[in-house]
């Protein structure tokens, strides 16, 4: 884990490591996310899921590692590439799939879809279709935690593209001056749609930007769930101890295009292949010494779970147009 130069040092010591059981659980969750998104893509191609679809295939380690470091009392705000975050946060695949199909049983009663999925009961305050949209909201959640004086934190997930929005800078500054318990987690998947990160900024690392706000910033291998876990755990301890927010940059990669309409002319097959060789699921399975057959069995289990979710979603009722006005106002 490389600490960015010029950043404020973290007063909290490095976090503990994960047990084998925890790593196995993480591996399985990553497989569930992978199979969920592959199935969602298939359903999209069949016209059963509509609109647009932003897949995080290849980025599963960041979602799983970060969520594992937080508690059920903590809050999550995330992005339009957020299927993995939602599942890693403990949401049910069936209620998610129902939302993808626009059904009444979905987490948002078919009003939000894949891009706006939330699980408010579980303190998952929702995915955002605006790339830096969650960051100013996270400041408010942090402020609320501070006012209520609880031991919670809020983690807001965003992409490399969001770090060039004004809202990113306003939010980091505000969270820092007030020492708010916010974890700014940037998933640097190397492209903002087609814009490569090295062409969109002149600093080497997004985490360097933390220094401008007097905040601790760190870049970690986003394909290593343990590295992400350690960074988020430390950020959480720092926040709860009243030392304020942290900016964590997780370097990772999406195998699929930005969305379904993306022809990916901006990158090479070789580049994609090079990242696939660092696949987070294969890597962790290897590190855990999992045999090929055991790995396949786990994937099959995940697949069965997703198949059930699809059956539930397909059998679920459509929302009633008679209720169309519900929820605009309280």
């Amino acid at each position, binding site marked *: 884990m490389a600490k960015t130069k010029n950043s404020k040092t973290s007063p909290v010591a490095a976090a503990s490591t994960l047990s084998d059981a925890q790593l196995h659980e993480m591996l399985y969750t990553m497989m569930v996310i992978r199979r969920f998104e592959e199935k969602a893509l298939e359903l999209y191609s069949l016209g059963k899921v509509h609109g647009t679809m932003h897949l995080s295939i290849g980025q599963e380690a960041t979602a799983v590692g970060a969520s594992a470091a937080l508690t059920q009392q903590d*809050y999550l705000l995330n992005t339009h590439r957020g299927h993995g975050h939602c599942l890693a946060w403990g949401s049910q695949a069936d209620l998610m799939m129902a939302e993808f199909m626009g059904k009444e049983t979905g987490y948002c009663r078919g009003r939000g879809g894949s891009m706006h999925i939330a699980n408010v009961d579980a303190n998952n*305050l929702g995915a955002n279709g605006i790339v830096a949209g969650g960051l100013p909201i996270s400041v408010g959640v942090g402020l609320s935690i501070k006012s209520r004086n609880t031991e919670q934190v809020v983690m807001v997930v965003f992409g490399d593209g969001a770090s060039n929005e004004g809202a990113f800078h306003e939010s980091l*500054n505000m969270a820092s001056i007030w020492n708010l318990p916010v974890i700014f987690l940037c998933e640097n998947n190397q492209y903002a749609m087609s814009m490569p990160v090295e062409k969109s900024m002149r600093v080497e690392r997004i985490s360097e930007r933390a220094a401008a706000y007097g905040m601790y910033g760190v870049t970690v291998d986003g394909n290593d769930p343990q590295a992400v876990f350690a960074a988020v755990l430390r950020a959480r301890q720092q926040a709860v101890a009243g030392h304020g927010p942290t900016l964590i940059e997780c370097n990772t990669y999406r195998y699929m295009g930005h969305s379904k309409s993306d022809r990916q002319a901006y990158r090479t097959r070789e580049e994609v292949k090079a990242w696939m060789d660092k696949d987070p699921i294969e890597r962790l399975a290897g590190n855990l010494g999992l045999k090929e057959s055991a790995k396949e069995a786990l994937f099959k289990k995940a697949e069965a779970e997703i198949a059930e979710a699809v059956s539930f979603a397909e059998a679920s009722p459509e929302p009633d147009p008679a209720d169309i006005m519900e929820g605009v*106002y309280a």
Partner: protein
Amino acid sequence: MPSANGTREITYVEAVREALTQAMQADERVFLIGEDIGVYGGAFGVSAGMHAQFGDQRVIDTPISEAAIVGACVGSALTGMRPVGEIQFMDFITLGMEQLVLQAAKVRFMFGGKASVPMVLRTPGGSGTGAAAQHSESLETWFTHVPGLKVVMPSSPYDAKGLLLAAIADENPVIFVEHKLLYKISGPVPEEPYTIPLGQPNIVRSGQHLTVVATSIMVQRAKQAAEELAKEGIELEIVDPRTLNPLDDTLMIQSVMKTGKALIVHESVKTSGYGAELAARIVESEAFDYLDAPVRRLAGLDIPIPYNRNLEYHAVPQVENIVAEARKLVRGEY
């Protein structure tokens, strides 16, 4: 709700401050956040003295960061607080538009009704201070076009207090537009807390010859116009929507059925302005059959507010414009 009769008189700015103070005393979840609202007391003095009373955890000064101010309201409202944000001049809402329009207004619906955003965003709007185009906007119509937002514009000290207390108690995001020139006007305001339900218009003055539907400072100008016209035997009925959206238009439609004529007056620019909505509501209703003159609109000219005092004066409806327009309508000169 207590009546305004027989109570002490305070100014509009004092009424707003009293509402904020009483809301904060009654509910520790209520807090203020904005630029220069602390020791400085707010650009228009609304929160003067409140920092000393409540401290900097509840009267929170921010950097100049409108998007983050609005976002801070959204996030804290989502998680159990009742924030009251201040945007120093209505013009600056442009910098917080994404958080207001795409986040605050939509979160509840997008999440299937499972979240609430009980926040108030206060802001001074309107022209008349000689501050030119970027400190004089009347942008309320924009927000009436956004489902999920409530838009409130009090025209008197009494309404300012009652509507603000109702807005803070409301479970939805509310845009509360105060008028810079109204801050100094006085009127009777009860000392105890009271609320005026959002969405409830007010008949400010009764009359039989013409219905004038006016918002914010235009209500005060319409009242002055009505006094002049009364000398000629022309009696205006003045309807103040108070809440622009959601709007209960029943009172307005009944009034037009009574008078047979309608004049709509607002400060924001005419094209696609709020008056168009009111006019359409009148002609779409049963009042259409009662109209014996066209529905007329008096509104701001379709220009940015000019710096020159005289030009600024002519950019938005004044008392004499209302008098002239009302007279023509009543005399059937259209």
